[in-house]
């Protein structure tokens, strides 16, 4: 069977050359960077090299601004809580966009339980934050503004540079979660005016087990994982040396290959979206059209009248790996808060499918996906009472309304006795 991996947002395979770079650090150079002998000093040098490479990827001024954590989630937690705790006396107000990743959202919620208040800046129907809304949300108690570079679900590119100008003007530290952009789009921390940036090399063919936090001197942070004085006192715990080393090389390669990777996936993104659009009716693209406002790796689709998990499972059976933001696939039985934030109709949120491209996908694969997916949609629609009720005029389409029938949501509420959430 053909295997097509279209879930690069969740994972990317390690590059063979990165694996080779990591290999000596498992058995031979196995030392602890805190040790003062040969074994420790050797790996200390290796960490330094990784820091320099990662600084280059994001145009940091100095490798001393790079801190290693265990993943993107921990980096986001450190950015949010580290700044909040460090500036507790100055103020306890945070500004975040409504479509931040759960690692940001849930960090903020945790702080709210400890007495912080947060303003969640809404996004438009394409998922974009307006810089003026950020400006309006900042108070004299605000100690941090957090707006991600690219949305993990719908691929929207945020106007971070403009927001960076706002925060600079107001003198508030600016944190940009670049997990969904780093390695794929240029991330220039200086041009962005970012004081904190987080990401993880596992998103661009580096290893799992390492996250990065960039932090410049304009943002004070304290540690959130306490213990030894690793990472300049900002992150205690024995460093995951092989992963850091691998993350360094993956970053160097990502920087070098960015133009070719980006144009490759952009072409596939266009081919995939246009192919699907031509073959499948009542299909909606969530987030901006492919182009300058959307990351070239991501397509977030809603297939009307059918539910996401069934699409995902059927695709998997055909060897195609995708994700979904439908409530059925989430452990919490809730639709992605991003889809809620862009005001997506519940009917469409339920039919959500996320396809994320990588450098190794091919045109043939894309054509196979288009073919297979349209077959699956037909099969699932044949099973769906909603499709039948749409065809018989009981309910209307959200994607292409006919003016006949009631809305799916009204119908769903009437049969379930409660509005869907």
């Amino acid at each position, binding site marked *: 069977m053909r*295997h097509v991996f279209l879930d690069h947002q969740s994972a990317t395979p390690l590059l063979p050359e990165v694996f080779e770079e990591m290999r000596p650090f498992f058995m031979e150079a196995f030392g602890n960077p805190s040790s003062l002998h040969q074994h420790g000093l050797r790996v200390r040098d290796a960490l330094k090299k990784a820091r320099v490479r990662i600084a280059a990827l994001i145009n940091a001024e100095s490798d001393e601004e790079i801190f290693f954590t265990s993943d993107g989630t921990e980096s986001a937690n450190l950015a949010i809580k580290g700044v909040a705790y460090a500036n507790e006396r100055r103020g306890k107000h945070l500004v975040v966009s409504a479509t931040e990743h759960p690692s940001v959202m849930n960090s903020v919620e945790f702080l709210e339980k400890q007495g912080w208040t947060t303003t969640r800046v809404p996004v438009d129907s394409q998922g974009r934050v307006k810089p003026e809304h950020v400006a309006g949300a900042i108070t004299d108690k605000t100690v941090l503004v957090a707006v991600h570079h690219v949305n993990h679900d719908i691929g929207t590119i945020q106007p971070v540079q403009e927001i960076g100008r706002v925060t600079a003007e107001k003198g508030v530290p600016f944190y940009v979660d670049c997990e969904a952009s780093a390695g794929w789009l240029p991330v220039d921390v200086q041009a962005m005016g970012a004081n904190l940036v987080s990401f993880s090399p596992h998103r661009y063919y580096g290893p799992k087990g390492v996250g990065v936090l960039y932090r410049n001197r304009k943002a004070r942070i304290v540690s959130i994982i306490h213990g030894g004085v690793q990472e300049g006192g900002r992150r205690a715990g024995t460093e995951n040396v092989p992963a850091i080393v691998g993350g360094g090389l993956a970053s160097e390669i990502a920087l070098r290959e960015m133009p070719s990777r980006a144009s490759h996936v952009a072409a596939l993104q266009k081919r995939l979206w246009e192919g699907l659009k031509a073959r499948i009716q009542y299909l909606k693209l969530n987030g901006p059209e492919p182009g300058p406002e959307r990351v070239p790796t991501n397509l977030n689709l809603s297939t009307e*009248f*059918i*539910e*996401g*998990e*069934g699409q995902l*499972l*059927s695709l998997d*059976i055909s060897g195609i790996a995708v994700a979904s933001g*439908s*409530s*059925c*696939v989430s*452990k919490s*039985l809730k*639709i992605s808060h991003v889809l809620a934030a862009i005001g997506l109709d*519940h009917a469409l949120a*339920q039919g959500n499918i996320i396809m994320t491209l990588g450098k190794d996908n091919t045109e043939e694969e894309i054509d196979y996906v288009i073919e297979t997916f349209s077959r699956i949609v037909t099969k699932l629609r*044949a*099973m*769906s*009472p*909603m499709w*039948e009720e749409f065809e018989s005029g009981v309910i209307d389409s959200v994607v292409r309304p006919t003016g006949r029938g009631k809305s799916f949501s009204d119908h*769903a*509420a009437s*049969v*379930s*006795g*409660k*509005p*869907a*959430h």
Partner: protein
Amino acid sequence: MSETYTLYNQTVMDHFQNPRNMGDIKDADGIGEVGAAACGDIMKISLKIKNGRIEDARFKTFGCGSAIASSSMATELIKGRTIEEAMSFSNQEVVDALGGLPPVKIHCSVLAEEALKAALEDYVKKHPEVAAKAPAAV
């Protein structure tokens, strides 16, 4: 990859991929359509009933793999039962027959039970004489 890894067990996957009794019954004697508020799934079951016995059962489902498998299995199980027997049908039968569902997906089997009960209710509403015989279940 040589082995196959599946989210659900083989029986559930089989019922998802090759659903039994998918579709509608023309001139159904009872139709039930219910929705799960928890996740937004919708299930519709239609029944053909003759001489107090379920002759045919069909489903349509808007929902995840386990919802589709649950409705497929529920319609399989229910065919041939009397109304009285069907009235006491429980989701646990579906779960057992499917060889188990992940905890978070048990509600899919509940939805199947509810759709079936709603279809029976619909039938009973149209046939008050049945209600007189089995009032407790409705």
